């Protein structure tokens, strides 16, 4: 299989008002273990990854109402936000998307919570915000 192949759902992103409160359902009721928590200042978000099989659920809490996630929360409320595919070569996968005429949010990959990541524009993907992630080498999914 090509290194740029999209092999699995890395995670599904869910916007929540408050991470601690969200754990009450996603961790405590559904039983999903919290794998990683981080604050990404430049994205204005505090995020947690909860493991589910070969994938994760990413809970996203805005750090401020002015952040992208804060605006999403104000406009649409809590709920599904994006889907992220795993790839072994995020730069190559992004080049392939560009070559197919997909409108991009990130012109080149950048570090994110899930690894080296990039976002595609939902205008090209039927309203679905799509992310690609190449997991960091020391965090490759089992």
């Amino acid at each position, binding site marked *: 299989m090509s290194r740029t*192949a999209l092999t699995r759902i890395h995670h599904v992103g869910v916007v929540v008002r408050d991470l601690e409160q*969200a754990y009450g*359902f996603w961790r405590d*009721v*559904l039983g999903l273990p919290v794998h990683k928590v981080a604050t990404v200042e430049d994205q204005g978000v505090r995020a947690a990854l909860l493991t589910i099989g070969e994938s994760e659920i990413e809970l996203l809490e805005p750090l401020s109402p002015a952040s992208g996630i804060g605006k999403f929360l104000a406009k649409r409320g809590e709920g*599904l936000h994006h889907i992220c595919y795993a790839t072994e070569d995020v730069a190559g996968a992004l080049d392939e998307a560009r070559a197919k005429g997909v409108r991009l949010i990130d012109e080149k990959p950048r570090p994110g919570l899930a690894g080296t990541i990039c976002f595609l524009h939902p205008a090209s993907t039927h*309203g679905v915000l*799509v992310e690609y992630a190449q997991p960091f080498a020391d965090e490759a999914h089992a």
Partner: protein
Amino acid sequence: MKTERIDHVTVVSPDAARAAATFSRLFGLASAAVSGSADATAGAAVAIGGARIEFRTPTESGPLADALKTGGEGMAALALEVADLDQAIQTLQHAGIRFDPQTVGGRRLLLIDPRAAHGVRLALMARR
């Protein structure tokens, strides 16, 4: 509760077949069978790893029709597979979470109150 994997993500679209074809072409994903649906919907699906992305066009009123009307085309629901659906029912009841049990395409599932699931239209499905 033991929640084991993502079964599928549902995308609501005015043209499910076209949306599925777009995802196949852009992301190199093979087409797959759609599960039965609690809503009467026309559908198509693609496979990715052990999960699927399902595309639905609502043909009558229901939660997915509401999602398309209020949120537009895009991600509308999430289905997770649990190890033991009866145990899931007990856990939900104990936590005071409302749910609607259904059998769709011969498979038991629970539609969770979206207010409990942080705005997500969430289904918990029994193993195949």
